[in-house]
């Protein structure tokens, strides 16, 4: 089985977020980047297939050279090779068009259900449409037997089990593996990653359908008032008269 894992390169959640160019551009200085958590769950599942069922795992990112350390980390975790599509994507459609060029050669494409930076949640769906592959989003379980895939999906208040056939695009999330299953790359893996190929490929022509006009940070948190646990009257008074929520 040939698996493609789409890796989005996102700021660590503890990073301080700022914008430049009149609040229309994300300021990356001093920001630590990581593999999008949903993609890391997917990559870990891909490694499981590789170990248990035999699979070749490629990781791909649409991004500039600054995203290469993120791909190297994926290689150090155990992916066999990496592709970087050399572009600065600014919307989900453009990104999916680029990914589709690569994805058509694979049996299973694992993407995250959404990125934790721009939270578009569009790439896997558009990618499935462009490649004509089957598509299941929000996966919390994935098994493959021959060309049949059994996928568990989170639905409101429960779970749904689905069967479909490869080729398939999934949007994965926590549950496809658990947090404790995530692999921290080790020294040997990092040394092996040195020898693995990271192919840089130029983007295909595509339009960008959306444009970020401006960004706004959430309003700063106000000060907190602490109320002793046994002083319910004071709490009710504050909620009623000051916060005016009850």
């Amino acid at each position, binding site marked *: 089985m040939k698996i493609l894992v789409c890796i989005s390169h996102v700021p660590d959640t*503890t990073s301080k977020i700022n914008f430049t160019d009149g609040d229309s551009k994300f300021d990356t200085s001093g920001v630590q980047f990581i593999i999008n958590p949903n993609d890391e769950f997917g990559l870990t599942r891909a490694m499981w297939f590789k170990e248990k069922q035999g699979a070749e795992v490629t990781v791909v990112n649409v991004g500039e050279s600054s995203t*290469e*350390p993120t791909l*190297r*980390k994926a290689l*150090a975790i155990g992916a066999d090779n990496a592709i970087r599509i050399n572009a600065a994507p600014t919307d989900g459609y453009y990104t999916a068009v680029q990914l589709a060029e690569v994805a058509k050669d694979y049996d299973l494409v694992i993407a995250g259900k959404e990125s934790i930076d721009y939270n578009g949640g569009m790439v896997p769906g558009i990618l499935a449409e462009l490649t004509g592959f089957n598509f299941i989003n929000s996966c919390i379980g994935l098994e493959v037997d021959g060309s049949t895939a059994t996928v568990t999906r989170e639905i409101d208040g429960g779970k749904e089990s689905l069967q479909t056939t490869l080729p398939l695009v999934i949007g994965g999330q926590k549950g496809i593996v658990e947090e404790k299953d995530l692999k*921290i*790359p*080790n*020294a*040997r893996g*990092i*040394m092996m990653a*040195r020898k693995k190929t990271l192919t840089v490929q130029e983007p295909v022509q595509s339009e960008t359908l959306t444009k970020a006009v401006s960004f706004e940070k959430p309003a700063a948190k106000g000060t*907190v008032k*602490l109320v002793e646990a046994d002083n319910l009257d004071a709490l009710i008074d504050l909620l009623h008269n000051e916060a005016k929520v009850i």
Partner: protein
Amino acid sequence: MVSKSYIFIFTLSNKQIKFIAMKPDLFQAPDYYNMDDLLSEEHKLIRQATRDWVKKEVSPIIEQYAQNAEFPKHLLQGLAELGAFGPYIPQEYGGAGLDQISYGLIMQEIERGDSGIRSTASVQSSLVMYPIWKYGSEQQRKKFLPKLSSGELIGCFGLTEPNHGSNPGGMETKFTDAGDHYLLNGAKLWISNAPFADLAVVWAKDENGRIHGLLVERYMEGFSTPETHNKWSLRASATGELIFDNVKVPKENLLPGKNGLGAPLGCLDSARYGIAWGAIGAAMDCYDTALRYAKERIQFGKPIAATQLQQKKLAEMITEITKAQLLTLRLGQLKNEDRASSSQISMAKRNNVQMASDIAREARQILGAMGITGDFSIMRHMMNLESVITYEGTHDIHLLITGADITGEQAFK
């Protein structure tokens, strides 16, 4: 406000078990001079991997083990998998084949968690694997290094004796040639990992008073390793004695490649280099904790971080950390080129451990009473650093090494 919301102490009084749930490890490494620009992507990757591992495996449990004066043995496997056992040992012997800066960064991150865990990794890498790699026969390398790297075997290093600490050249442990084996007699004290080590690299004198390294294995008759108790420092690391009562050591267990005091000192150079990095880790953790606390702790209606006195402490801390980072990275570059002298290593070990120890003390005060509890790592670091400033050459001895180097006059004797 800070003080109350962060303490979680659960006491099962009937069983007298105290479980301390550490706060989530929020550590963020300071990099005031953009030193990261001088590191390779690989350096940053290995550092991040080690940091992630420490946050996941060490931080949540270490305080409890330190309080119980117990070594968290279950971490050995993780340390091995991470590659913390012999990171710079060539891959053909099971090591990772990384450079010296990577080794340093691994030590920094582990000691950020706890000096005791770093001690175990230092001993295994620089005091056990290093001498076997550098002074061992090809057969010894093939036999021991892969198992030491995978954690299947854990080693210790016996140099210090009850009557000879700073002056190891005076050691009394000796071996005699008994035909088809050697007979080893004597005792070593203050040996990290001794209580559970499978293998000891032991330095002893031959009949001519020449120092050699011998590989003493757990199963050998007459070899025992009683544990040293009641330490206030490195409580999460096991320390013990090595006692040799007519131990028969096979001749193939002598390290053939180097003898004389220079042999153990060569190992110490490698370990001290790692400690210089490690101390930065401990200092960073204390600084980061104190900075966060100072910003959150309100007294007299404002964060204590807004007072000049606390700012002085914090500003001096980050200045000292930054100086140590520069000193140590340069030392790492020299080490990569095989150009770092023993005296240069001494300077970094001495400077950085003192720096960390000073920062731990100041940081502890910034936390007020909270600083003395096990809810924060600072006092544990502070106590640990008392060992770190003593072992691998005391603070005084390293100064005398610098003194001897610049004046040409040996002041030890």
